[in-house]
């Protein structure tokens, strides 16, 4: 099952490599990983998407908690949450399909943010699933490049991961 683990970690050199190293050393898989400082500059917030059985996810959260730099973590899959990912996608355009691609981007609430005579760059946010769906929907056109941030998210309501 897919899990989104949200981690508050000391904003120190090497903290990211401790997390990444843990996953490679113990053979866990990382689907995506995003990290950036928070409003508290001593802390970074990391969002990590992984898959595994309940036993594996339990070990992952325990091993992450064991890292001295990890202050707190939560598995967003355990709670009602909002999840977003940002994607930039560059599509080759022909005069014949420009309108179609633009329409498709609109349907998915994407924005065209760069235009040349031969290409569109589309910006889109949403759940990872929605981004997958968009990629599938325009796959008959020539996709030149895709970059995705990986999922990030927060629990709904007043519950929060803070100190």
């Amino acid at each position: 099952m897919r899990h989104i683990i949200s981690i508050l970690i000391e904003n120190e050199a090497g903290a990211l490599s401790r997390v990444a190293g843990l996953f490679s050393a113990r053979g866990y898989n990382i689907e995506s990983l995003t990290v950036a400082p928070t409003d508290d500059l001593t802390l970074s917030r990391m969002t990590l998407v992984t898959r595994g059985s309940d036993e594996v996810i339990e070990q992952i959260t325990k091993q992450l908690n064991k890292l001295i730099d990890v202050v707190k973590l939560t598995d967003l899959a355990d709670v009602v949450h909002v999840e977003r990912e940002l994607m930039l996608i560059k599509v080759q355009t022909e005069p014949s399909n420009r309108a179609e691609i633009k329409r498709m981007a609109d349907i998915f609430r994407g924005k065209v943010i760069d235009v040349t005579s031969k290409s569109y760059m589309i910006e889109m946010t949403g759940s990872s699933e929605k981004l997958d769906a968009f990629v599938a929907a325009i796959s008959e056109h020539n996709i030149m490049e895709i970059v995705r941030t990986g999922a990030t998210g927060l629990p709904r309501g007043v519950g929060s991961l803070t100190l």
Partner: protein
Amino acid sequence: MELSGGQIVVQCLKDEGVELIFGYPGGAVLHLYDAIFQQDDVQHILVRHEQAATHAADAYARSTGKPGVVLVTSGPGATNAVTGIATAYMDSIPMVVISGQVPSAVIGSDAFQEVDMVGITRPCVKHNFLVSNVADIAETMKKAFYVATTGRPGPVVVDIPKDITDPNIKVPYAYPESVSMRSYNPPREGDQAQIQKAVDLLLSAKRPMIYSGGGVVLGEASDELRAFSRLLGYPVTSTLMGLGAFPATDSQFIGMLGMHGTYEANMGMHESDVIIAIGARFDDRVTGKLTEFCPYAKIIHIDVDPASIAKTVKVNVPIVGEVGIVLKQLIAEINLNPRRVGVEVLAAWWDQVKEWRSVNCLEFDRESTLIKPQYAVEQLYKVTAGNAFITSDVGQHQMYAAQFYHFDEPRRWINSGGLGTMGFGLPAAIGVKLAHPDADVACITGEASIQMCIQELSTAQQYQTPVKIINLNNRYMGMVRQWQEFSYQGRYSHSYLEALPDFVKLAESYGHVGIQIDKPEDVTPALEEAFAMKDRTVFLDIITDQTENVYPMIEAGKGHHDMRLRVAPGTPIDRELA
């Protein structure tokens, strides 16, 4: 008080109460060594290889409970220390390793003797630090000792660039009284509801087992384990790392469990209905095949490290906390509870255990004209009256030591259980002897392992650490040979040691006493002679039976009930039937 970085490191060690450190100098730590030269409070032991510094410090820690401290230079000094750091990590030994680093300005430029020590050690330390400012040294050192010694202990590396220890840059020094880290709060008490559940299970058992591990030794919980076990009267087995926490000569003790554990301990685990695992981590050498591990048992597991719980084996009642505190909570709860396992029920279980015990699984051929390694360890036990500190290397001799030297006290059995590091024994013995100068210290080793850190005979000479090296010399890498006999139809690929040195002359060349024996009747007199030489390091080279194997054995991929015995249960002991 204004001090330079080098002086601050040394002053931190003093303020932390460190008396001994083990190390080897080099370019990046010259400022530090200069600071060490100018004081007398912290004694430095110069080893002959950085790996030995880590093993000696590790064994100092294992035998005293105090953290071991190591000082090495950058680059090769640091990488040589890695094997010892990983050894300490696998066995959860508190250790602080200070490594020099190239000056801050050239980090990342592939400078002379530069290596990314923080990166290299990341997977085998509890935590590590790179100090980037002189003013940060004291707090970092305090944190290093705090992290290394609390919770589940482990090694911590403090990597210090050379410019940070510059004698010309001085800053005010004060060692922090205490330290708190928002991201690190090791648990102490166990959850009371879990304690209650555990007691209910323990008191309703029919075939209970107490499975004790190295955590009891590390957690100084030997007294609590003894009180708890005697209160319940259940059979007690121990892992390799836990030996001594419960007295081996106590009738309640049924031997070590696992791959080379006793028949009674493994069968007991297999048939048990309630197992309490105390400071043990269900290592693969303990469990054998996981799908066949303890099929009838409900399991209670006490560990200070939540990640140790349910890592490989599902447990019914997890209790996270310090073993000593949790055992006290359990004892208090049991004392409040009038219920007890019926006398007849417990007696029937003990009868079964005694029947397994009567197989006498450790028996060996006592009529042999060759020296049996088991016999040598048995006599060592007698000659030292069971009071020696025993270090070991890794292989058959390690298992013989665990089986035939009956440890009644914790911290007497010093071996690399998790990582299985050959070369550990001799430097470990030196570390133990420095910590306990009046005690008998013996290193049980083999001719293969001893050669992996043989250079430390020189350290033993320099510091006059009179340890006894009991070299069970079978001219084979015995454990490798045994596996090749069992699983590779006797194709002894590279497990035979040709061109062995003359160990007697080798010992003598380092200024020690060398003795070689090859007859069973010489074993006891030679041991007595060796231990009578109180102030000499003695290398006792014992030529043993080349073909002897360690029994019993659970071969890879088998369950506890599927043990390979020397002879089938009930058969009189005969020569080498297996």
